[in-house]
């Protein structure tokens, strides 16, 4: 097994892990950043604009990602994950990292996309959250880092078309899984979050009603790299003019096992509503909510701005969504202000899905227990004094791996994790 040595292993290349890695690298520590997806940048790189400033998400993420990718003190593995992390002693960890084959020589690939054109296989594009298709030979998305092709071997029919057209001849079907032994002194877990799967609430008919989408799908419809270049109902390609948001889908809901608030859905829905009013000036947008959690810097003002723009806010829980023949949706909801159950018709419904922990990172730790909190996020064992400390000395947590948070908080948390890692590493230096 190949042996590599670094100062710090950062697990997860989203905005929090990236921030930690950059800070440490700037101080002079050698960092290995391991990302399970094919690109770094996490969820943020896929977003449209960000609240409450309405900055373009790509414009903020891509330069950070680029800085990470070319930093002399940072090594990035994409399509890779740690299988096992063993603590041998203080400032002494060993990780076994699995590098999955991409079947493309990343350094040689120019991103010309000829393989994409040649590939005869079309499958659903996970980076567009199912709204569009992609080929089995594909570049994950246009601003991916690395912007290099990959072969989706599960769907590939091994026809060899991509190989024949590739100008630098960088497609390599002989690549295999590789396990690497990585020696490090400290670990930062920045494993992020996953979105709530709305299929767990059958009453919302996400699988059957074609014009019910998730907020992440709407995020893609609004993003600069959007699949349709405009906002469309996926059911029939019609431009919607009466859109509803269902807040707390999968959050604050014990019936689906998630009692906590996801902290970001109110704000991203308000942001999307504002963007929709810009993209579709004639459209109505209604947000069904329980409480609007506009708590951060500039958030309440952003909420007031949405109200002034004409976004309608209805205090009420949506109980059921049914599809009509024309693809429109009937929402049955409790109008709390009126104190009655009502029905409303919309032509598109966005489920504002919540934030859930990414599972499994605790099982990677071999001989020490990485404690989780009651909601399965990584437990912050000294949350008030050292928020990135975990139950294992030398292992720190950054970003949403410890609980729901928005982008500014994730970045601050990434900064905090790098600070505490620095202190931990300095303790060895001073020995």
């Amino acid at each position, binding site marked *: 097994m190949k042996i590599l040595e670094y100062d710090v292993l950062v697990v997860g290349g989203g905005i929090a892990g990236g921030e930690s890695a950059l800070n440490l690298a700037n101080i002079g520590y050698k960092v290995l950043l391991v990302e399970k997806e094919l690109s770094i940048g996490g969820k943020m790189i896929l977003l449209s604009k960000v609240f409450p400033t309405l900055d373009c998400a790509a414009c903020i993420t891509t330069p950070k990602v680029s800085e990470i990718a070319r930093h002399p003190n940072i090594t990035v593995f994409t399509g890779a994950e740690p299988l096992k992390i063993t603590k041998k002693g203080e400032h002494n960890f060993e990780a076994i990292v699995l590098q999955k084959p991409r079947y493309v020589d990343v350094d040689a690939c120019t991103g010309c996309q000829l393989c994409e054109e040649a590939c005869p296989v079309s499958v659903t594009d996970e980076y567009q959250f199912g709204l569009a298709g992609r080929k089995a030979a594909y570049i994950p998305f246009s601003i991916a880092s690395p912007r290099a092709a990959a072969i989706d071997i599960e769907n590939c029919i091994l026809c060899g078309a991509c190989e024949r057209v590739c100008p630098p001849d960088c497609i390599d079907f002989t690549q295999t899984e590789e396990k690497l032994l990585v020696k490090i002194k400290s670990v930062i877990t920045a494993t992020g979050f996953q979105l709530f799967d709305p299929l767990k609430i059958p009453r919302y008919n996400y699988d059957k009603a074609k014009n019910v989408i998730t907020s992440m799908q709407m995020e893609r419809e609004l993003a600069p790299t959007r699949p349709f270049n405009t906002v469309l109902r996926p059911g029939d390609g019609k431009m919607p003019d009466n859109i509803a948001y269902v807040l707390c889908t999968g959050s604050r809901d014990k019936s689906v096992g998630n009692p*906590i608030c996801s902290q970001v859905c109110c704000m991203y829905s308000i942001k999307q509503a504002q963007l929709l009013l810009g993209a579709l000036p004639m459209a109505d947008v209604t947000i069904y909510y329980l409480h609007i959690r506009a708590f951060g810097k500039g958030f309440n003002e952003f909420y007031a701005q949405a109200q002034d723009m004409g976004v309608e806010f209805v205090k009420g829980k949506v109980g059921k969504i049914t599809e009509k023949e024309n693809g429109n949706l009937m929402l049955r909801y409790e109008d709390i202000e009126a104190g009655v159950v009502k029905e409303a018709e919309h032509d598109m419904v966005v489920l504002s899905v919540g934030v859930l922990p990414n599972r499994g990172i605790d099982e990677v730790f071999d001989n020490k227990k990485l404690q989780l909190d009651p909601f399965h996020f990584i437990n912050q064992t000294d949350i*008030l004094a050292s928020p990135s400390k975990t139950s294992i000395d030398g292992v720190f947590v950054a970003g949403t791996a410890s609980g729901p948070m928005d982008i500014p908080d994730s970045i601050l948390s990434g900064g905090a994790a790098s600070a505490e890692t620095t202190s931990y590493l300095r303790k060895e230096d001073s020995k």
Partner: protein
Amino acid sequence: MNKKIGVYICHCGGNISDYVDVEKVRKAIEGDDGVFLAKTTMFACADSSQKQMVEDITDQKLDGVVVASCSPKLHLLTFRAVAERAGLNKYNYVHANIREQVSWAHSDNKVGATEKAIKIVKATIAKVRNAEALEPVKVKSTKAVAVIGAGVAGMRAAIELAEAGAEVFLIEREFFVGGRVSQWDDLCITDETGKELITRLYNEVMKHQHVTLFTGAEIIENNGSVGNFEIKVKVTPRYFKLQCSGDELKKAIEVCPVEVPDGFNFNITKRKAIYHNYPSEYPQLPAIDMKNCTRCGKCEEVCKAIDFSQTTEYLTIKVGSILLATGFDPYEPPKGEFGYGEIDNVITLPQFKRVIHYNDDKLIWQGKEVKNIAYIYCVGSRQLNGDNKYCSRYCCTSTIHTAITAKKKYKGIHNFHFNRGIRTYGKAEVWYDESSRLGDIYLQSFEHDPPIIEHRNGQTFVKIKDLLTANKELEVAADLVVLVTGMTPRQDNSIGNLLKVPKGRDKFFNEIHMKLRPVETVIDGVTIAGASQGPKNIMESMNSALAAATKSFSLINSGELALEPTIAEVDDTACEWCGKCDEACPYSAFEKIEKDGKLIAKVIPSVCKGCGMCLPVCPTNALNLIGLTDVDVESMIDALIPNA
């Protein structure tokens, strides 16, 4: 010396190209003098585009580059770095803003937007033609940081900086450290008390030999700038010798005739002008509050430790960076807001927390046992008419946590929450849930229809049109009304003014960019942490303190700073010192020197920001801005208005 210029026009994924015909812009400029290569790109900032630019610059030997994209505030540094990586001096890169200044501003006029974009790009090309290679101003930096404010954020930042290897001066205005957290008992999230947390942090601070703590101290002057701030600290004495007998101190406090409201208890109790601190306050030393002391001398007669001969000290400290963790003030309702100051059982949330602290078995307020408590939320936050439009973030969770504490501590408590929509975000939702299970009643109204407070027949009532019961008018007879007051920026902004740190529309200190540079300010070398930047809970304050410590440390770590060379310069022969430049300069970057027998102005390179305020006021045209000379500006104007 014709330049070989490369021009890149960015689509910004539609942000620009939806309104500006970028291909038309490219065609319009590709024949311009010196333009060797003109390309459009989907995202100029993407890694792949940057790589392409580096290749172009090296392969084609370009010596001038323009990217027409977003605001230079976002990406000037990104593309300068591209130039550097390609071996080109970064000042041969010039940025054109065709997003904020064109596509977003003129989304209603695509033809006009395209025309404007063409002109801006042409003007930028004109500037890059004159661009010269510049070298950064190198400044030695002091490997020390001043942390202002010894609350939780300041103490945590100080510990972190010391552990990273910096010399730290922790400067606290009060006589005691701990800030607001020392005033709280049970803290939210953990079962730790404020006292325990402060004790832990204080002990850590004192353990570090590289942290010097000053209490009763404030910064009154600053000369210098990033890398080398020279700050003058005024240290007020406690008027106590270090050794002090407990009995004598007790007597001294007894005989002191002056009684003033005790700020530690938010004025619900009184203290003497000579006072001992609370167990949660450090250092554990008494102090005399000279603002209120009448100098009657009675204490001196009974206590040998008192020493009125101590005098105010002034120290000068050199640091490379300043970290502001100056905290917040709780909102103080004006007399009459929800009966505050008029009805005697209306108090604020911070006061209520202190009341709970002092009551063990029964909750007593002004001699009467309290059973029904009405909490009125968003007092001083989310104001419809006032200035505070923001949400104070911590108060919903804090109130619910306090209400649960009261309910568990005393028998027969009924909590009524008059709220505007509960914002227990994240995991704090569990307390909202718990309080509901414990039987707390929630009543809600909107901003424009707040609850009304009435006092009749010796009883206080809170009335609300409750939207949770279909807007029925409901009334609660309350034994105690708790106004849930939010966080406000510090009333005393002397340190902010001194360092010229800008404030946001919420009047808290403002960061440069919420996501890209969340703890830095436009004043180089000054970082911000904790609630000085906006409402935050303890954990969030800690995260920002640690992030700010990292930023301050990375500034001073190498011992040397490279500053922008695009600053003002003085033509010694033309300058006849008149002082007008000095008056116009917002950063005090000028000094008067004598050279060859005459007085002239000199620019201090590490202080000058290159803002250009001095240029137009100079009567002898002796000032020039490096990188933006008259020639540059004139050539840009010629490009913008070719036939003028």
